[in-house]
């Protein structure tokens, strides 16, 4: 089951991406527009099924490889967008223009995870309740961060198009600049609060269990705290002098790149399936 889902998921996400690409070009809703949500939800369910299979394979919380984390990040980002972001956007704008880019990100993450990640997991020694709380919080924070960076990047693209007086597909299909800025700040706030809770929860657990590998200077801890502060700046940019939406969007996009980069440099090479 794990192997089947690992191979199937990139193809499934590619089909979703093509459905969203069709909708991005389409003027009015048609059968494909109505079905794209169904494709997306079904693929997310399959993806969740993969992680359920991991948990079942070790009868408890699994010890994830970093590429499993990449896959989990994709799943959580997709879920968060599907449950919260897309609904809000469609109501206001009539189409999920951002969806194409979110699905592309999720597809990219899963493709990397499926191509290079291991098929097996080891059991984790952590208390299951703590594990799911800590990992869940960090994953939700990371997904919010990813969405914030996506909204920020799209703000910059659309702003650049409008400033250059070009009114192409991005202009027609994305939400307004105001909406993109607002969603970016909202996602940033969510990210920094959850990241703060998740990191401190992890630190508290490490102290309580006297975990020998833990250190405040551990790269993951430092990066997490730095990202937390960075996205707090984005979340409260409206109240900070000199931080207009364009600069905040730039900060959010850079934050996303740094975050993805930090995952990349932590990756261990694996076999191509």
């Amino acid at each position: 089951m794990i192997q089947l889902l690992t191979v199937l998921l990139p193809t499934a996400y590619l089909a979703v991406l093509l459905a969203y690409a069709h909708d991005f070009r389409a003027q009015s809703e048609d059968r494909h527009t109505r079905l794209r949500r169904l494709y997306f939800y079904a693929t997310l369910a399959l993806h969740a099924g993969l992680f359920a299979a991991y948990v079942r394979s070790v009868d408890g919380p699994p010890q994830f490889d970093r590429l499993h984390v990449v896959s989990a990040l994709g799943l959580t980002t997709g879920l968060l967008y599907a449950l919260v972001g897309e609904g809000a956007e469609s109501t206001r704008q009539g189409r999920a223009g951002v969806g194409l880019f979110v699905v592309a990100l999720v597809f990219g993450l899963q493709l990397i995870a499926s191509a290079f990640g291991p098929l097996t997991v080891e059991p984790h020694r952590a208390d299951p309740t703590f594990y799911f709380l800590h990992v869940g919080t960090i994953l939700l924070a990371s997904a919010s961060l990813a969405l914030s960076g996506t909204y920020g990047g799209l703000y910059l693209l659309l702003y650049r198009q409008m400033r250059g007086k070009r009114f192409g597909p991005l202009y027609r299909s994305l939400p307004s600049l105001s909406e993109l800025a607002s969603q970016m700040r909202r996602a940033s706030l969510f990210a920094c609060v959850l990241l703060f809770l998740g990191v401190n929860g992890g630190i508290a657990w490490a102290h309580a269990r006297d975990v020998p590998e833990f250190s405040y200077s551990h790269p993951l801890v430092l990066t997490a705290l730095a990202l937390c502060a960075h996205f707090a700046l984005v979340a409260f940019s409206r109240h900070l002098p000199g931080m207009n939406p364009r600069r905040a969007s730039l900060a959010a996009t850079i934050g996303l790149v740094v975050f993805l980069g930090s995952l990349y440099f932590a990756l261990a090479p694996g076999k191509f399936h």
Partner: protein
Amino acid sequence: MTASHPDLERQFALIGLSHWSAPVDMREKHAVPGDQLVARTRELGAVDGVDEALLLSTCNRTEVLLVGRDLSGALTALRSGIFAHAGPQHLYEYRDLHAVVHLMRVGCGLDSLVLGESQILGQLRESASASETAGTLGDHLRPLLDQTFALGKRVRARTSLGEGTLSVARVAVDIAERASGPLEESRALIVGTGETGILTARHLVARGSRDLVFANRTLANAEKVTRDLGGRAVGLDALEREIARCDLVAVCVDGGRVLHRDHFERARLDRRDAPLVALDLSVPRAIDPEAAEVDGLLVYDLDDLARVVAENRRGREAATRETSEMLLAEVAKYLARRRVARAAPLLSGLGERFEEVRSAYLSEAGVAEDPRARELAVELSRRLLDAAFGAVKNGLRGGSGDELLDRAYRSYLDQR
């Protein structure tokens, strides 16, 4: 020029008036309320010479499509009946292929006030449903309407017909909405009382904008506009204060620069959720071009807006050409179906004749009672018949060439 076609074995006639031919008070007199649609359609079907009838009535058109063997009497009755209030200058008539083409054009939205609008398809469905209830839909109109609906859906899904506005003022409002979001929540400052500026204000109001400020050198002129469109009037001395608060500035004045770079720099645009959109609708330009360099400000002049309109127009022209090609193909398909339908009784008769000949031959050969021989003969003749009828039907569908159809379409367009 005649629009008859050998594959239309009945006469088709369409008579009506629309926003192209009649003013709104004339159209009002001929509008048919929804609850009377079935009854009025039934009356049409009862007219001498009419076999099938369709009545389409919307705020922009009232049209009757009839099918029958001889419709001249029916058309005379309609001119003095349902269209009694309309003069000859208000009515148009299309016969045969022109009527078929017109119906499909209406279904595609090519004849609509707003090119490509989709509401007409729903209205046509209601008329078809009324005709079905009234019992005036038959073998000619039913497939024609089915094809019209399918074509209408396909055109809207595959072409960009109806996309893109052709009005500078509307493009300006679209850009403002794309920057700052729903217009109900934004504030607009209109500087000057020029025509394009006022038109932009009207579009803003139509799209829900409630917070308008009109600034003019002469306060009384600005106040005059507020009596019509609502909002507040201010003098030009309040410009800087109002710019700092608004999401959109539209400037339409005579005689030189009104807004300079420092007006916008002092407005502290970096504090906003979205860039300020400044529309320079003046000739000569009223906003200093250097202002475009201010961070958080998007400036568009008439040339920029006209470029968008020109691009939209090119898109629509291309979509109209593409739609016309799809429409002609659909009409050709309809004619092919009529050909096959006309040949159906002949083919059916031929099938019966083949069976008679087969039975007679088997009897002559003395094997009529042999089950194996009979089975072989039946199977062989069935296969031969299927092959022959298939070839005949394909030949009928292939048609008698597109020239007649092309000529009829061109002559239809010439009449409009």
